[in-house]
């Protein structure tokens, strides 16, 4: 894939990347349409750049659940 090809048809590039990494081929036009919805997710993630802290890790969630429970 080239940067130029990606820009010209990002959906085709994504389909190719999924096939390459997952071995899963495009299962139909519904899937192609749903791929376009990822653009909103990509924008959402871009808006969150700058919030991930160096020490953040998944186990912090269980700790937060217990820290934030109501105190008797």
């Amino acid at each position: 894939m080239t940067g130029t090809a990606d820009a010209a048809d990002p959906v085709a590039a994504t389909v190719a990347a999924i096939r390459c990494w997952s071995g899963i081929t495009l299962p139909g036009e519904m899937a192609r349409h749903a791929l376009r919805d990822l653009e909103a997710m990509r924008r959402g993630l871009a808006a969150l750049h700058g919030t991930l802290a160096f020490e953040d890790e998944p186990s912090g969630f269980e700790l937060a659940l217990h820290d934030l429970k109501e105190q008797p």
Partner: protein
Amino acid sequence: MTDALPAGGDLAALSLTEAAAAVAAGEATATDLVRACLARIDAHDGAVNALIRLDRDEALQAAAAADQARAAGAPLGPLHGVPLAQKDMYYRAGRVSSCGSAIRREFAPAVTATVIGRLDAAGSIDLGTLNMAEFAFNPTGHNHHRGDCHNPWDLARCTGGSSSGSGAGVAARFFYGALGSDTGGSIRLPATMCGVTGIKPTQTRVSRFGVMPLSFTCDNVGPLARTARDCARLLGVIAGHDPKDPTSAREPVPDYEAALDGDLRGQRVAVVDWFLEGAEPAILHVFERALQVLRDRGAEVHRLDAPVLDAVATYGGVISRVEAATIHAEWMRGRVAEYAPHFVGRLYPGYAIPAHAYVEALSRRGPVLREFVAQAMGHADLVAVPTLRAHVPTLAETDLETDFAAHWDRHMALTANTRPFNYLGLPAASIPIGFDDNGVPVGLTLAARPFAEARVLRAADAYQRDTDWHRRMPTAVA
């Protein structure tokens, strides 16, 4: 109004806790209850399609045994003799659990889910298994393989999903309660659309051993029933640590029913503007009326905003899509034709999300939860949310297989106010608060801090003491 539901001689009209009390007091037998439920199923499930499997003879035999046990003076569990039915993804050893799919049409697990074992031990009667979205991956109630489930208030409209048969069957008085599962709203959506009560507990509150996975970090097990008191009874039975599910919390399980005192004085309820964006005026009208009921009980309601919810929505979508895609990857490579076309259409984008985005979503979950609690619950005990921002759509309006592009946005919008609580891991219950312009139920979500299910249920019960929406019989199956 009193807590008692008018029975009118119709045992199926009792709430779950009333039915249990009737059996315990000898005012009805378990056999009576099962027969009342079977009569409702025989009369109306042809139209609703809530059940996948009905174990009629086994249920009657179990009821007879329950009646004999009571007559012999055996100790009675909190659900003794009460008919339930479960979403077809709760494993019972040796019984087919299709998960609403074709791929698992013959799948008979070797294990029994911990929650099923706990309901059995509490004395409940298992009527059978319930319709659901294929692999619990759909918020509407469509099922390509088993037939769509239909809303008992309007058979043309969605039941909500993925626990479609659970919501529709409880509403139609086919049984007194049911388990649902909730990864993005799959308990709360059927509860609101079908006019019943449902609670998604705190993440880790209930064991998921023996339960079909969809998203291992956001899946939750919880009950749907007619009242908050019913849900308190069921949650009290199923909650608590399970050595077979190492992710289940070791937090003690409180007596949820003991918390239902009707007292909301001093309770601070936050209404977060983010959840009201784009909401239909008719929904807002019903929502505001419900808030007034809470105020009349002594609650203090105030509005605020929680900007972190944009991050919650984005990260929540990342996690659920990636995990579902991963779980189904082997079948997507080898058995894709056995899925419904709309299922693979919705699942496929999950394979395109970068691994670093997924890890970021997991890593930010704790800090984002802290931010949300600070923004929304710093000065509030509860958050109140309209469960849906729009009226309940028809099955045709959300059928992705007839027009994927046209129906996609409506489909995705259904979970806007439910999915955030899965990423946040907070307990959230939906209760019926009225009807939309089409005469289909509207729901109110009440959420609270981690492990504060008792507070949520207390508020829901207090609301139901002053209203009768939860008592209404669905018009299409009256």
